[in-house]
């Protein structure tokens, strides 16, 4: 009997048939077949092997594809229609964007200086974000987000008008203390937006408000009109000098302090290194300086203790004791060290997500 392995006959024509492994049958079917276009068995045996090899390669390719798909393509988490609806999105640059979220109770309760915790989807992490604005009439709060890590970039990718955030909870932390005649508000980087509700509140309470805001360059400047409306003097600083003062916010702050030696309070919000520099700038002037801390936190309700910061040799929880503290007492080096806590994990999460997205 001739060797008819992989061969079968259909209408006298010889065909090759290779079985597909069980796990791939959903994509390839039960087996792969190809006609050899001959009715002669000897001829079929002669040309069989290359065809079998070809079909085998097809199966191997499908297997590799399925495996890579499994490794990095988790099914995307669906949008949660019971979450908090996004009513507006505005992009300020390729990394900074604004979300206006429908949350009437939150908008009613929010005060300047407070923050919320946002969860993007049901597998997401709890991300603390300072409230950049709130509109009690419209019942919305505004968040300004800088896409730097995995969660924030995923937000940048997923959040559109009409989609939902899984959770928004707050407002957390003590509101800013009001009651000063003359204040200097300093915002740098991701701190520009959160400083806005504070200076608006100060202006509405009748204070003389000087704002110092810093950006990398002219193209990244946003909300200039909003700032101008609520402050008596606006100093814009850019790293490359393309708009306003050429230099960092500390330069603008120095100028503001020189022009207004009677300023009662300085409020600085931004990256830790910038807040530290502001604290050092104001220290010789002896002006009360307030900073808003942004440590790593989980629940934001005083339960995990992950957000502890050292203030004047005492340990405070930024979520319930802050987030604003006296800048001259804060241990910024401690804060910056603690922000590095998950550096490796952050990189893993980001790589993984990028792989899945591509």
């Amino acid at each position, binding site marked *: 009997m001739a060797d008819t392995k992989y061969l079968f006959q259909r209408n006298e024509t010889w065909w090759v048939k290779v079985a597909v492994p069980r796990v791939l049958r959903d994509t390839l079917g039960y087996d792969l077949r190809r006609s050899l276009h001959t009715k002669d068995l000897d001829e079929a045996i002669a040309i069989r092997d290359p065809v079998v090899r070809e079909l085998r390669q097809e199966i191997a390719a499908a297997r590799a594809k399925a495996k890579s798909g499994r490794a990095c393509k988790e099914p995307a988490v669906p949008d949660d229609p019971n979450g908090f609806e996004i009513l507006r999105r505005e992009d300020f640059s390729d990394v900074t964007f604004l979300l206006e979220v429908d949350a009437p109770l939150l908008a009613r309760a929010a005060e300047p200086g*407070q923050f919320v915790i946002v969860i993007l989807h049901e597998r*997401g*992490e709890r991300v603390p974000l300072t409230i950049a604005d709130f509109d009690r009439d419209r019942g919305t709060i505004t968040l300004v987000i800088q896409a730097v890590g995995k969660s924030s970039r995923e937000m940048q990718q997923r959040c559109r008008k009409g989609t939902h955030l899984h959770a928004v909870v707050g407002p957390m932390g003590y509101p800013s203390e009001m009651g000063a005649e003359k204040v200097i508000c300093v915002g740098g980087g991701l701190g520009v937006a959160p400083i806005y509700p504070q200076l608006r509140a100060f202006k509405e309470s009748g204070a003389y408000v000087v704002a110092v805001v810093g950006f990398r360059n002219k193209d990244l400047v946003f909300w200039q009109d909003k700032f101008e409306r609520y402050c008596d003097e606006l100093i814009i600083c850019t790293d490359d000098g393309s708009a306003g003062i050429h230099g960092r916010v500390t330069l603008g702050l120095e100028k503001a302090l020189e022009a207004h030696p009677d300023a009662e309070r300085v409020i600085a919000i931004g990256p830790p290194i910038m807040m530290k520099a502001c604290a050092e700038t104001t220290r010789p002037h002896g002006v009360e300086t307030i900073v808003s801390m942004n440590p790593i936190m989980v629940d934001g309700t*005083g339960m995990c*203790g992950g957000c502890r910061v050292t203030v004047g040799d005492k340990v405070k929880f930024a979520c319930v004791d802050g987030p604003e503290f006296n800048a001259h007492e804060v241990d910024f080096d401690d804060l910056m060290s603690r922000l590095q806590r998950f550096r490796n994990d952050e990189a*893993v999460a980001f790589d993984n997500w990028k792989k899945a997205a591509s």
Partner: protein
Amino acid sequence: MAKKTIRSIPQDRADMPVQDPHARTRNFDEVALGFSLDHALVECERCLICPNPACVPACPVNIDIPGFITKICEKDYRGAYDILTESTLLPAICGRVCPQEDQCEGVCPVGESLEPVAIGRLERWVGDMAIREGWRNVPYIEPNGFRIGIVGSGPAGMACAADMAKAGCDVTIFEALHQAGGVLRYGIPEFRLPNEVLDAELDNLRALGVKIECNTLVGRLFTIEQMLDELGYDAVFIGTGAGYPSFMGINGESLNGVLSANELLTRCNLMGATQFPKYDTPLGLGKRVAVIGAGNTAMDALRVSLRAGAEEVYCLYRRTRNESPARVEEVEHAEEEGVRFEWLTAPIEILDDGNGNVRALRCQRMELGEPDASGRRRPVPIEGSEYEFAVDTVVYAIGTNANPIIGQTSKIALNKWGYIETDENLQTSIAGVYAGGDIVTGAATVILAMGTGRQAARSMKAYLGIRDSQSIYEAPKIDGLPVFGIDPNEKSHVRIRVA
């Protein structure tokens, strides 16, 4: 049926099947697998059905223990469930997490000469059967128009909500986190209390008409005063718990790698950090983990660390095993799983590696001295016994304090430790506002929190003038009333003399 005596009952406790220690350190499945029907039927025969039971008053919610065990003996399991649910909302949960050896099982007269009746395991068995069979006791509820706000969806809030809903009130629970359950969700790990059990009990609550609003931070989103004045609640119950973790105040606590047990457990239980990076929340646990403290939370932290991939896990406690406040079963389970206990050891400093991470602990050996106010022998440091102990993660499980948010945002009276002050009816300084659970008592147990939740519900009903239709089900009140000349509150007298 002949009367049961200590000699006629099965002498040995039915063994609870458990997952193999080696297998279970690699999964989050439940460790104690629960009784089978055979186990339960043997164990229930061990109860002497005392006519004047000691276990009932020893239970914070006064479950009719001989009553439900009798029903199991009669093979009327549904009847047993009905008796349990008259007093407890969460039999499947309490059977798992109550410290029975200090409560019902601690006073069981069988325990004087044999192992006490495994009341907790029987309770759990009935609770699990109810979940499996879909039993639910939803009474006929006639709405009375009162609106009740409950702050916190933990055990105290759940118990209070259930009682108020059964009385006909419109009850809403507010939870600050994105999932309900409080400490049962974020604190107690899956291998001790599976989420399905908690979800089933929460569904029971919803079936009573209770609404649960997550993502609502009461105090900041609206205050207690606003709930009464603007939002139209007739009474409010505060059960926000004692979740604020303590640290020791020694050097090096701000290093990366030092965290509270709460943080570790929240990341794992609530945020799914053990499945990072599928879930976004990282855990950041090292290979050599030291947990400081030896309470139930410490045991949970130790066992979670093992399951999350730590290679060596140590428990540091300044007293000995005898003084450990954890449930005996938890310590045994932790030991079986490979947790190493360093008794009589206290950390005095956390050392860094130069990059802001933990390198080691500096520890000191202790010895037990004279008993202190709590009756436990006070640990005294041994001079010159200091040594270094290489670890990369330090977890604090040395207790928690009152959550400060309600105190910060309302005029409610607090005591000097920040807990809410209440009178004997659990009413706070604001009329119509009651409080219970850990925010009143300080860190305690799930069942005690449930007990105070129910007590607050009773006071609330009295305040609102609701006739308490549930009271007929409650265990007979024997406060101060001597029965047959024996003072039932005197524990030593309640024991039954066995011939």
